[in-house]
Each structure stands twice: as C-alpha cells, then as structure tokens.
C-alpha cells in the first residue's frame, strides 16, 4: 500500500522588500478540541452552545478540594492523532500546571503537558497542488485544558464568565518552523484539519473555535533558512513574532502576509523586530502588539501534584493503531493508482472522508473510477453546491448515481440523456434503470433505424450534402440532425459512423 504520492517541495515564497528579497519562516501551534463527550478531567458535557455555566462540574469551577481525574477517551484520541501524524507515542507522559490569573481560568492554572508530552515527533505532507507538497515536521502534541469564556460586552460595569468550555480537552499540535509561505500555512491547517476529521479526533469546526492556531512568523534572507536546517542554529533566522488565536485559514494567510511585510519594513529601515505576541485584526487587516517579551507571563510551570504521571501500555496503543482509518494521503494514492484518477480529482474526492466514501460506493456499483469521479465531482457536487447541500443531504444515493454511471458505461444511455436522468433522479428519486425503461430513454443502437434516419436527412438536404463532401467537418451537422430527430436517444458513435459512410467521407 502506498503511503502517499511522490511529490517535490514547493519554492519558498519570496517577498520583494524595498531593497532586497526576503523569505518567510513559519511555525504553527494548533489547538484542536478533542472530539469527546466529556471534558479532559471531569464528566461534564462538552456540547457546544449549551446554556452558560450549565456544563460545569465542581472541579471545572475549581471548588475547594476538587480533584482532576483523567478522561481515558481523550488520551486515546491524542494517541490516535499521534499515530495519524506518524508520530512517536510516549508511553509515559506527565501533566504540569501553567499558572496565571484570569476569571475564565477558575483554578488559576491550566493543566497542560510542558515537560513530557504524550506525542513526540511526526509529520504532515501539506499538498500545494498535484505533485507538489511540503513535508512539515511535527515537534510534539500535548493534551491540555481549554479555558472558559469571558464576556465583556453584556454590561457596562461587569464582566460575565461562562465556564462551559473550561476544562474541555485540547490537543496542542506544534509544528517545526518548516512552513515557507502564507499559502503553505493555510494549507497546513487545512491538511491537519482534514487528517483530524478523518481520524475523528477533532471536528475541525473553526467557527466554533474548535481549531485555532498561533502562528510564529519570522523573515530571513534567501539561503539563511537552508543554513538553519543544516546547523539547527535558529540565530541565523530573524526574530519571530507570534500571532495568537486565529480561527480562519483566510485570516492566517492575511496575517502572515501583513506580518512579513511589517517585519521586512522594520529590518530594511535598520530597525530590529521585537519578539512579542501579536493579535490580528481582520477588520483593519493588520497585526498589533498584544504583549512584549518583557511583559510575557511567568507561568511558573511545575508538575501537577494532583495527577500521577500518565502511563499507557504499548498493547493499548497497538489496539488503537489496529483501528486506524485509511488517511487522506493513502486514499488519494490509491484513487490515483488503482482507480486511474488524476491527482487533482483524487484530491477533490478525498478532501472530506464523506465525499471519498460516497465516491467509493458509486464505484462499487458502476465499476468505473474515472467515470464515477466525473459524475461525482461535476454533476453531483455542482448540483449540491448550487443548492447549498452537504454530501450527507444528497437526494441522490451512491447506489442511484452508480446506476446512472453504469447505464452510461453499458451504452444504454448517452451522456446527454444521463444528465436528464440525473435530474429526474435528483428531483423525483427512483431507480435509474427502471426510469430509463419506463420513459423510453434508452439509446437507439439499432443500426437499421439509424440508417433510415440518416437517409431521410440526406435526402432532405442535398445542398448540405454537397458542402459536406467539400468540407468533411460539416458531417457533424448531419449527426446533430439525426440525434435531434431521435430525441437524443440515437447512439452518437453509431450515427457518426453511418453518416460518414453515407456521405462517402
């Protein structure tokens, strides 16, 4: 089985400054909410959109004497994610406390994994187009608690706090600084999201904040990055700034673009980039300083004494590995190699696992990957998109679409009739073969009948016959006339052949 298709690395993005060209070095820390019914250390529900402060256990509210107990399912999800990113799983990890005061952090600390994360080094192949992809190394994944939500605009004098999200499990997925442009950064998040959704470990809903990214951006001169990779010496790169809490791929791209130009302008003016945390303002399209390095919090990390080190067994990890789904890269490779799809079509069909599953169910009926891909991508997706439907809400089942494709493949209907048939199935439902039979939509391949029709057209249009003999391209006019007369049911290939013969071409 092929892991992924062959690819070559994209060129790093170059930005022309006023004086010289610059390159970007980007690393991301993605916070992905673990798909789990209960929180990381409590049994409270994680349902989004519940009444404020209704999904709160005593420990979530940091009531005195309450203690955290690890949710095994969240651990399994982190392990599954690690395996999906081809990462090492640490059989022994540990939780630390990150201490800071904020009203939406009731304990006064976040339980996280600074020193001993559960998942070690892995990688993500970030597709940038057919045959082009960036291999981005993953440094680590750790489990941690999410904070609650402070609401400052409900009252002029008070702030409100909603603890529903407090203690929900997050995976922080940290990349190496291997990303070389704004588009790559967005594509990285998209690919990560795709893998997480395939794995079922995060729903990837960015609007609800279930996937958020902190982006580290620095600039360097062409050639410096290669030096860094060779020596591991980060001092050859520029000073990085961290843009916090981005929940849209478009904003990630815009923010990096802006931030790179800001840094280039500073350096070209002879200034120095300050290491700091910044926020992106999508309305103004710019980043602004949130806090400088000097103002950075001292989080006073130390091992959480309420939790023993987390020890898991290899056999347990193996059990999870045994239930891993086929992941996007492998699926795409299989679609290309085994079903003869173009890489582009395979990418489209594997973008969401639901699409890929639908497509495979169509192929199972019609046994023609390429034709099925055309129909799924062009007809079905086009139509669904027009109506704003997700694949799950498709009125046409894979069996129905497979039936349509099968009728095309067998020559029972033409492509044109197939579109009519698709429309009927889409709006009225029903079995395609039965509809074709009942409504007389079958393609005419009776050569005698076609010959008669051709003869009639030739007899009725002597002038056209003369022209066509001079210019064989005009034979198509006769074919069109015959097809029209047959109501589209005549087999176009047969008509072509007979017209050519009769005209003596």
């Amino acid at each position, binding site marked *: 089985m092929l892991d992924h298709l062959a690819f070559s690395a994209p060129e790093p993005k170059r930005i022309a400054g006023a004086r010289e060209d610059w390159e970007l070095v980007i690393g991301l820390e993605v916070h992905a909410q673990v798909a789990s019914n209960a929180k990381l250390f409590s049994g409270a529900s994680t349902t989004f959109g519940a009444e404020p402060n209704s999904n709160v256990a*005593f420990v979530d*509210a*940091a*009531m*005195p*004497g*309450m*203690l*955290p*107990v*690890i949710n095994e399912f969240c651990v399994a999800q982190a392990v599954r994610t690690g395996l999906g990113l081809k990462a090492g799983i640490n059989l022994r990890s540990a939780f630390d*406390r990150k*201490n800071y*005061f904020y*009203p939406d952090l*009731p*304990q*006064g*600390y976040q339980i996280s994994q600074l020193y001993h994360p559960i998942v070690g080094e892995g990688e993500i192949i970030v597709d940038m187009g057919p045959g082009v992809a960036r291999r981005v190394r993953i440094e680590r994944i750790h489990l941690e608690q999410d904070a609650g939500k402070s609401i400052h605009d409900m009252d002029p004098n008070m*702030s409100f*706090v909603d603890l529903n999200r407090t203690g929900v499990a997050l995976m922080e997925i940290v990349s190496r600084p291997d990303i070389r442009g704004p588009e790559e950064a967005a594509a990285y998040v998209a690919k990560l999201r795709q893998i997480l959704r395939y794995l079922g470990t995060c729903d990837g809903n960015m609007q609800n904040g279930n996937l958020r990214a902190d982006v580290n951006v620095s600039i360097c001169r062409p050639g410096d990055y290669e030096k860094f990779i060779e020596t591991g010496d980060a001092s050859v790169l520029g000073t990085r700034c961290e843009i916090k809490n981005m929940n849209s791929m478009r904003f990630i791209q815009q923010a990096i673009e802006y931030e790179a130009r800001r840094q280039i302008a500073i350096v070209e003016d002879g200034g120095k980039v300050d290491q700091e945390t910044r926020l992106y303002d999508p309305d103004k399209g710019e980043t602004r300083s949130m806090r400088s390095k000097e103002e950075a919090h*001292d989080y*006073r*990390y*130390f091992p959480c*004494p*309420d*939790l*023993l080190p987390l020890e898991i067994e290899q056999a347990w990890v193996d059990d999870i590995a045994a239930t891993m789904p086929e992941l996007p890269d492998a699926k795409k490779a299989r679609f290309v190699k085994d079903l003869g799809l173009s890489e582009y079509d395979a990418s489209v069909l594997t973008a969401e696992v639901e699409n890929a599953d639908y497509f495979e169910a169509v192929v199972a009926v019609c046994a023609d990957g390429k034709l099925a891909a055309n129909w799924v991508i062009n007809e079905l997706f086009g139509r669904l998109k027009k109506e704003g439907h997700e694949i799950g809400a498709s009125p046409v089942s894979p069996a129905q679409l497979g039936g349509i494709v099968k009728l095309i493949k067998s020559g029972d209907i033409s492509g044109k009739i197939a579109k009519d048939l698709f429309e009927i199935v889409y709006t009225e439902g029903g079995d395609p073969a039965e509809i074709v039979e009942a409504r007389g939509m079958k393609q005419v391949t009776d050569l005698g009948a076609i010959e008669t029709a051709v003869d009639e057209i030739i007899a009725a249009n002597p002038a056209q016959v003369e022209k066509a003999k001079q210019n064989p391209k005009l034979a198509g006019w006769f074919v069109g006339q015959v097809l029209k007369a047959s109501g589209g049911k005549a087999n176009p290939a047969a008509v072509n052949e007979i017209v050519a013969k009769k005209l003596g071409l």
Partner: protein
Amino acid sequence: MSLNELTIAEARDALRKGDTTAAELTGACLSAIEKAGALNAFVHHTPEIAQEQAAAADQRLKAGDAPALCGIPLGIKDLFCTRGVPSQAASGILEGFRPEYESTVTRQLFASGAVMLGKLNMDEFAMGSSNETSVYGNAVNPWKVDDRLLTPGGSSGGSAAAVAGDLCLGATGTDTGGSIRQPAAFTGIVGIKPTYGRCSRWGIVAFASSLDQAGPMTKTVRDAAIMLQAMAGHDPMDSTSADIPVPDFEAALTGDIRGKKIGIPREYRMEGMPAEIEKLWADGAAMLRDAGAEIVDISLPHTKYALPAYYVVAPAEASSNLARYDGVRYGHRAALGKGDGIVEMYEKTRAEGFGKEVQRRVMIGTYVLSAGFYDAYYNRARKVRALIKRDFDEVFAAGVDAILTPATPSSAFGLGEMASADPVQMYLNDVFTVTVNLAGLPGISVPAGLDQKGLPLGLQLIGRPWAEGDLLNHAYVLEQAAGFAARPAKWWLEG
C-alpha cells in the same frame, strides 16, 4: 466517668451492649462542647446534624447493623468539605462557603455511622504549627502551666484540643508536614498520618497536594486503628489515592513486636535538643527493646535538608493551589472602588481574605517557581526529596521495621510566644515530622511522658509504606509500656 470521656473502643462496646445510646453519647459531647468555649476548638457547631445522625445510629444499633463507628461522636477539621456546613479552612477568604459536596473521608466516616459534632479550628489553610493563623482565633491547649495558655499545636490544633479536652471521642486531622503528629504530641493524644495515598484527598481543601494526608486523632492507638479503618481506602476521584486493600488495622494490634527491628536515626539527635526529650527518646527505645524488639542505630543522611526542601515544595504547591481563591466564584470578594478592574479585585480580595502566614507562603511559593529560580529552589528541593525517600528505602530494605524519633523538639509553647519570632523558629517545630511527608511514609505520634513542666511529650514512630497495621502495633506496644494516663485538669469548666 462521663460518656464524653470514653474512648472510641469503649463507647463502641457500650453501644453494642446497649449500655448507652448514641443519643446520650452525643448529648454528653454537645454539652461538653458548650462548656468549652474557652478552648475555641469548635468553630462551627452542628448539633442538629449530630442529633439526627445519632438517632439514625441508634436505629442501626437496634437493628444489629453497627459498623465500628456507629454512634461515635467526632469532630471534623475545618479543612474537610462537609455538605451544607461551613467549610472555610479557617480562612477569611472562604467566608460563607458551604460546599455542595461531602469529602470522601467524611462521607466514609458517616457511612460507618459516625456522628459529626461540628467543625474544628485549625491554622488557616493548614499553614502553621500553633493554630494562631486561624481566622477564628487560636484554639487553646487543654493542658496549661500555671495561668499561661498554651498552643494546642497546629495545624490540627482544634482537633487536638477537642480530643484532649474530651469534647469528642475522636477527630479528623490532616498532616502536610506534621499537622497531625505535632498537635497530638502537644496535647497528649495519638495522631497518625497514614501513607500518602491511603486516604482520599477528594473534598479536602488542598494545601500541598503531594504532601497532604488525612488521618485520625484519638485518645488511644486502638481508637486510631478503628477510625483510620473507616477513613482509608481507594477513591477513583483522587488520582493519587492508592488502589491497595485496607487491612484490618485493629486486628494488627497484637502487642507482639518480638524480633522487630527498630531504627534510631542518628541525624535526629539535633544540637541543643532538651535533655528531657533525649531521655524520653531513650526511654521509648528501651520500652520497645523490653518488648522484644531489636534496637539499631541507623543513618538517614539527608535529614538536615528536609526542612528547607519542605519549605520550598509545600509553599510552591500552595501558591498554585490557592490561586483559585480569587473572589470570582465563591467566598470573600473585596468591595471595589471606582475604576477598579479585575486586577484590583484579585489584589484586594486576596489581601483581605488571606492572613499573613498564608500570604508569606504564597509569596515564597511563587518565588521558588518563578523563571530563573525554579532550578535553584523547586527542582533542587525535588531532588532532595528523592534522596530523603531513598534514605528511608535503604533503611527499610536493610530490615528495619519502624523508626523511633521524638515527635517534637519541645512540649507545647505559650500562645503568642512566637509572635515576634522569626518564622523559621515556628517552622522548626516540623523538624522531626516533615521527612515523613516528603517520603510519603506513615508516621504516628504517641504520648509517652510529661516534661518537667508537667506537659505531655510524644514519640514518633515511622513505618514502612502501606504498613500502618504494623506501625499501629508498634505504637500500641509503646503506648502500653509508657502507660501515659495523665489528663489535663478541666480548668475551662470553672467560671
């Protein structure tokens, strides 16, 4: 003898025989408490709950379903969250806090029939060795020299005073660096800190999570065995609670320690140790030898680093554990001035709500965890802690069954005596006890004699991990041999 003066074992037998009732027993304690305001041991009285529980206990007794603690009136340290009952850890910051939940330990006690008389005084957040940091004011030692009022010790000072003053038959305590054993020694009672992980910490207000353990404070070793039995056990709600079976502790009290090896650690012979402490220690060793044990000199070489390591680790954890007291969700919130924001709310709330000693430890803890100091303090202390544990491991591996030390460097001191002293002077009270917490071992304080002033002194026995039964048996032998029968005069009843 009044009913409140009974031991738990005596009361249990009398109840089962029908010689008395839980209601009578509870009534005797409630009336003793009422007359003992001068001891300031109980900071919250729960007579209605007590009477209700006593009535239920009498029903169970009548029905022949009488677990060991059925109908036994106890006092509960204010550090334990008790459902619907003020639970403030003797701190102003938890003003008005009534938990919606019951700590695992008290739940287990009540499930085995115990009766709650009320909540007991303590040092604020269990930080202190004299009970003087309590927001309720200090508890008072029932023992007294002339007219001088003495500390009952701390942090479980209210528990110690209540048991020594016969206000209850037993009390819960907690011990982070000696908070059960030191007050037990100061008041002439028994107090055991079990192995870390033996009792659930769920529902106990946290001081230093890796050191805190609950334990019983009782009049006798047998009572400690009975009460610990009900308190101990695995709790899935506390990840640090051990899933290890709880043996029958009372059955372990055979009185036979022949062939056992008792270690006497030379590093505990502190410079300037009072002669009477030294004599008490030697006498204790002799008693155990007479009972057939072998006394051996042992070395615990890292002992001298224990106190400094403790006063790094404990405040570090405390600084984090106490961050939740911010005025946002429960307890005290300072009145805010115009323009005050969240930072001012935190600062004012915590400045008003926490006492000086708690503030000091939060500051120390914050400092030792801060960037640039973490390795020099916290990490080094953790390493020292590992070495201290290894010292004990090696001694036990060499065949030692228990270790005998003094419980405290002196008898109870006068209230207010330490007020102007360097805080380190107060911390020195824990010098013999903190090692046991750092190593997670069980330790018990047994009253062994009186000093020249006529005040009780205790000896400490340290046991192997999870060997509380064996440890209690050693303590039982020591208790029998010492024959400590002195009781404080009930001066608080006059006037």
